[in-house]
Every structure is written in C-alpha cells, then in structure tokens.
C-alpha cells in the first residue's frame, strides 16, 4: 500500500492549486493565528468541495481546540486539522468477502461516474490475485454499454454474462447469479445502468435488481458500491442518501481523483452519511484503483 499514496501525492502535486499546497501555504505563510487565517482556511475547504456546513464545522472545531490546547503557532494547526479530518473520515473499511462462493458486488451510481471502468479495474485486480471473476452486464440501457464491459472483461480475463440491449436488467442479473453459482466463481461483479437518483422508476428498477440477488443468494450482495465522481459538488451527498435508501449502499468508490478536484467531497459525505469510502480511482490505467486509507489520505493532504 505504500506506493499508493506516493502515487496519489504525485498526482495531487501535479496541480499547483492542490488542496495540499494551498493549506500548507496558509499555515506556513501566516505569522499568527487570527480570524483571517481561519477564514482563509474555511475558503480552502469550501473550494475543495468539503461543503459549507462541514467546512464551518471543521473550522469551529479547530478554533476550540486551539483555545483548549493554547496553540499559538500557525504551523501546529496543521496537525490538528489533520486529526480532525481523519476523525471525520472514520476507520478504514475493507471490502466484505463472503464465506461461501460467490462474493457478489453490485455497482451503482449516476451516469458517467465510471462504474464500468471501476468494474474492469476491480476484475483485473481480483483475477490477478488468482480469483475467478464473472461480470454481469446489467446496463442494458445505454448504447454499447454491454460491449464496453466485454472489452474490460477481455482485458481482465473475466467472462461476461449478458443479454441484448433493452433486455430486463433483473433477468440478466438472475442469469448471472445462476451462472456464478454453477461455475463456482469467487466473485460476481454486477454492472448497472447509470441512473440519476431522483428518477423514481429507475431507482425502483435498481431495487428490483437487488431483490433478485438477495433472493438467489442468502446474504448477497455482499457490497453495494456507489461510484462517485470526485468532480461532483454538493449533489454527491444527495446521491449517497438516495442510493442508500433504495439499495442500501455499503461503500463508496471515489473516482477521478487524478484531476484537480480535491476529494474534499469525501469529508463532507462522511460527515453527513457515514457510508465509508472503500476504493479510490486515481487514473485511467487498469491498475489505478486503490484501497481508501483514511489515515494516509488525511496525511497525504498535509505532508
């Protein structure tokens, strides 16, 4: 895991406007702790998509701690802020594995966040670890979504269970679950169509897909992973809330962290919903999916 954050830091440092540098600048550039410093800090957090309320809360907490611990050097603030953010991010949370085969992961999210890509990367990772993976082409709506998954399947060496475009996704998933059982694969990764969380019909369809899985395998799906685009603003919180209601999301995959969007959204989400971030996507390469490490993530922000 050591390499991950080296790489992440690498990517982050590519952009000079990164949260890291800017916070560092604020801390080291300031000569005393005053209202201007707090305000500047608040601005940085907001601009990193942490959200207004969470940013205000973090800064308020910081003020109190400064008073309590009688901190006077702006440089020490950094350590406190790091602590706070780590605290908000919660414990590291690993992907759940089933005791009996297969372990089933259902991948959900709005359009264009990187669901299929995430599945491709995850399949590759698992196959390389000697696991047998089956993919379910549950996105029967978007043009060529099935073909897209097939390409990823080939790259990862995983078979794809599919029907044709326009087929009932619940039926595809049913087939896939049966196939996963009879072929005794280790993992079944289910791709679903992108859907905006405010579309009731599409969300009902998702609930149905999940019910099919639940009915066919006792404690499955073992993870319902919501894929979130790190570029997304405050609407991400709505996404998590509504997908959680319908599909009982168990973890978040935060993608596209290799851009200039600074993942502050993670802090906001943890503050509001408590669904842990489990994986992060930091590039387009098939190996660019990594475990999310709250501690190191917070560290990486301030090193």
């Amino acid at each position, binding site marked *: 895991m050591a390499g991950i954050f080296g790489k992440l830091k690498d990517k982050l440092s590519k952009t000079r406007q990164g949260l890291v540098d800017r916070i560092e600048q604020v801390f080291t550039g300031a000569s005393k702790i005053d209202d201007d410093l707090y305000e500047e800090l608040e601005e940085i957090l907001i601009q990193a998509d942490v959200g207004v309320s969470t940013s205000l809360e973090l800064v308020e907490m910081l003020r109190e701690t400064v008073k309590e611990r009688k901190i006077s050097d702006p440089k020490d603030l950094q350590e406190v802020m790091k602590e706070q953010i780590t605290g908000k991010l919660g414990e590291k949370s690993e992907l759940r594995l089933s005791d009996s085969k297969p372990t089933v992961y259902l991948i959900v999210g709005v359009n264009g966040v990187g669901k299929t890509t995430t599945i491709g990367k995850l399949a590759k990772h698992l196959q390389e670890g000697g696991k047998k993976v089956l993919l379910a082409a549950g996105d029967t709506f978007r*043009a060529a979504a099935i073909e*897209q998954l097939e390409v990823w399947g080939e790259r990862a060496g995983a078979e794809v269970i599919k029907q044709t475009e326009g087929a009932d996704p619940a039926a595809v998933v049913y087939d896939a679950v049966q196939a996963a059982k009879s072929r005794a694969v280790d993992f079944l990764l289910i791709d679903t169509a992108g859907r*905006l969380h405010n579309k009731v019909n599409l969300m009902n369809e998702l609930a149905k897909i999940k019910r099919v899985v639940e009915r066919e395998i006792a404690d499955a799906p073992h993870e319902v992973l919501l894929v979130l685009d790190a570029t997304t603003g405050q609407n991400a919180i709505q996404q998590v809330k509504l997908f959680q209601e319908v599909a009982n999301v168990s973890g978040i995959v935060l993608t596209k962290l290799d851009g200039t969007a600074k993942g502050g959204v993670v802090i906001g989400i943890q503050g509001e919903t408590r669904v842990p971030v489990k994986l992060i996507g930091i590039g387009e390469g098939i190996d660019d999916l990594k475990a999310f490490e709250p501690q190191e993530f917070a560290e990486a922000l301030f090193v």
Partner: protein
Amino acid sequence: MAMFESLSEKLQATFKRLRGKGKLTEADVNEAMREVRMALLEADVNFKVVKELIAKIKERAVGQEVLESLTPAQQVIKIVHEEIISLMGGSESKIQLSSKPPTVVMLIGLQGAGKTTQGAKLANMLKKQGKHPLLVACDIYRPAAIKQLEVLGAQIKVPVFSLGQVSPVKIAEESLEFARKNGHDLVILDTAGRLHVNEELMTELSDIREAVNPDEILLVVDAMTGQDAVNVAEAFHNQLGLNGVILSKMDGDTRGGAALSVKAVTGCPIKFAGVGERMDALEVFHPDRVASRILGMGDVLTLIEKAQQTIDEKKARELEEKIRKQEFTLDDYLDQMRQIKKMGSLSSLLEMIPGIGNQLKGVEIDEKDLGRIEAIICSMTPEERTKPVIIKDSRKKRIAKGSGTTVVEVGRFLKQFEQTKKMMKQLSGMPGMPGMGGAGKKSASKKGKKGKKGKKGGQRKNPLAKFPFPF
C-alpha cells in the same frame, strides 16, 4: 432537509424584524448576504464567483428603500436573481453556421460528462431543423465508444464516420472530406473524455482544432460539477478557445451552480442543457430558469411551457367556460388528469413548482393512486359522471367493485371532487388557463406541505390530499 431550505425562507427570517423600517442598512444587508453566500455555495457556485457576486449584490441592496409592496427579503432575492441572470447573459442557443459548409462542431470535456450522448442529441435536433449532420467518432480510447456513437446514430438515422483506432486528427480530417462528398452540411466531432491536466491529450485536441478549424468548440459540463468546474472550464478555454457550453444531466436534482461558474470564468454562453437520456432531451438553455433553480425557487417557466405544449388551447377555453358555469364534470376531471399525465411524471412536475420541490424531497408520489382515481371515474355511468350527486351508497358499492377500490375511497374521492370544483370556481376569474395562474400554485404548495405532514403522521396516502387538482 435544512440544507436545502430555500433562500427566500432564510431571508424572510433574517428580515423579520425589519418590517416598517425605512431603508436597508449595511448591517441588515450584511446579515442577508451571509445567507445568500451560503445558498450560492451550497448550489456549487464557485467560491470566487460567489465573492464577486456578493459584492455586486451588496452594492445594489444597501440603501434600498423598504417598499410596501415587497418584503425586504423579496427585494434582496430580486436583486440576487437579477445579478445571476445578468452574469449568465442572455440565452444564445444557436450553432454558428459556417458560410462554407460543412459547419464543424467539436465536443470536448472530461470523462463521463456526456459528450457522446449530447453529440447525438445535437445531431438529432439540427437534423430536425433541416440540416444533414454527420457524427464523427474521434474517441479511440474508451472501450466501445465508437460503437456507442454508432448505435445512437442508427437510432436517430444520422450516419457515423469512423476509422477505428487511428489518430483522432486523421479521423477528423477525413470526416470533412467524407462530409463534402456526401452532402453533409454539418459535422459533429465526438472527442474522447480527458482530464484538463493531461497535457498529451489536451495537445491532441489542439491538433484536431488546427486540422479542421471548427466553427464551434463546445465544452460539455456535468451540471453536478462542484467547485472544480472553474478549473476545468478555464483549462479547456485556455487551450482551445471555447465558443459555448452544453450543460448535461440537468434532469437531476442538482442546483446547477456550475453553470454560473463556467460562464463567469470563460465568458462563453451556455447554449444547451441536457435533460434526459432520450435523443430529444436537449433543450435551449434559459439563464433565468437556472437562476431560480440555483436559488431553490423552482422552475415555473418550464412547467408552464410543458403545460402549454400538452394542453390543447381550445379545450382549455372550453374547460374554463365550464368551470365558470359550474358545469365541470368528472369526465372533464378525467380528461385533465390524462393531459397532466402526458406532461410527464407527476413528481417531476411538482418539483418545478417553487417551494414545493424541496418539501417533496423524499415524499413519494404514488402515480398508481392516479390510476386508481382513473379507475373510479371509469367505473361510473355517463350520468353519474355529469351528476355525481346521484351517487349514493349502492352506486358507490358498485363503483368500488368495478374499480377495485373501497366504498370509503370512492366516497372520499367524490368529496374531494366537490371541493376541487368549488376551488376551481374561485380561480376561474383568472386570465389564461384555469388554475394555471398564481393561485393554483399556492394551493398546490400548501397541499404539498400537508401531504408531507400527513405521511409523517402515518395517515393514508392520498394524492388528492396533497394535490387537489392535478394542476
């Protein structure tokens, strides 16, 4: 849902003590500006853009007389609204056509923004306007991206030019040749999604631009984008020089503050808004409506427009006449309900009504209940539909049986129909379509609140309790 409490409500509270005061002082305005700032930031308007806006708004608000007609809150909202619209500029949803066809439009953006989908929608829209578009598959990186464009092209019957996985510059160049030979007067280039910090791929875009000299370079931006929208837009603009923006996924529940950020940093107009996955779900961009949306004020104009498209003018006039004479029957009611259904899902319509959208978050509108009412009316005889007063117990029993409902439900529905009729009579004095004016709006919003409370209290769900008349 305190987070999405509307700005007007917050400002109303801020200004409560101001009633009867002569002028807005700087202190009054400062307090209000805190709320405005919060609202804009929660809507994902970029921090720096918010700062500039606030300064402008403040300048205008301080010293304003507290008018009799408007509350101070309304006055400030009006200024905020106006400033947002003026920042966003007028609507300019046109494609700059080349004097020497083919006109070349190039779509660019981050991964997953919706370039391919918007490209096909745009082709569809311009085809309907009499153009002969050609879609060009320049995304050679994403698996099955070419196939996706081909499938969409087939759907809208627009040919797709592709050369497989060769250099996108070459594809673009040859597509122009192909277009000229085959009489296409419009070429839409679908490029691969890329990060604005990826130098190699950004250079590729410049190379395509050099090669084909596009008439329009449009940046596709996801409406849900957060603070980073400015960085993205700026980078693409600096690299290529944008002509405009397409805002995708506006059918979500995002406030869409990114629209403001992108406009502010690039100065480019937002030309279109993507509002769904269907090929006709591309709309002209209306700055005024998005301004309302950013402020959480709903999108009344879109609602009215939708209604106008669906509701037959002549029928509406007949209906108004009937209401005035109190001849409004259950048949008319049914007719109205079906027209409303044509306008789209009820919940999406309700969300556009100011004040109601947010209250309804999480409240499920069971469209099946409308089906139940339809069944009740359809189980009545023509006589019963015109003269519901004759429906007594035994008729109720029959209707309940016929519609698969209960006598209680039938009774409740009839009672509500009578109330609706009365209400409609009061509204019928309004110009234009009955119930479409302000009063209808208000009552709907009130009922929306009631509906939510009702749900909490565990009462039976009844769509009519929330929504006495479907508009």
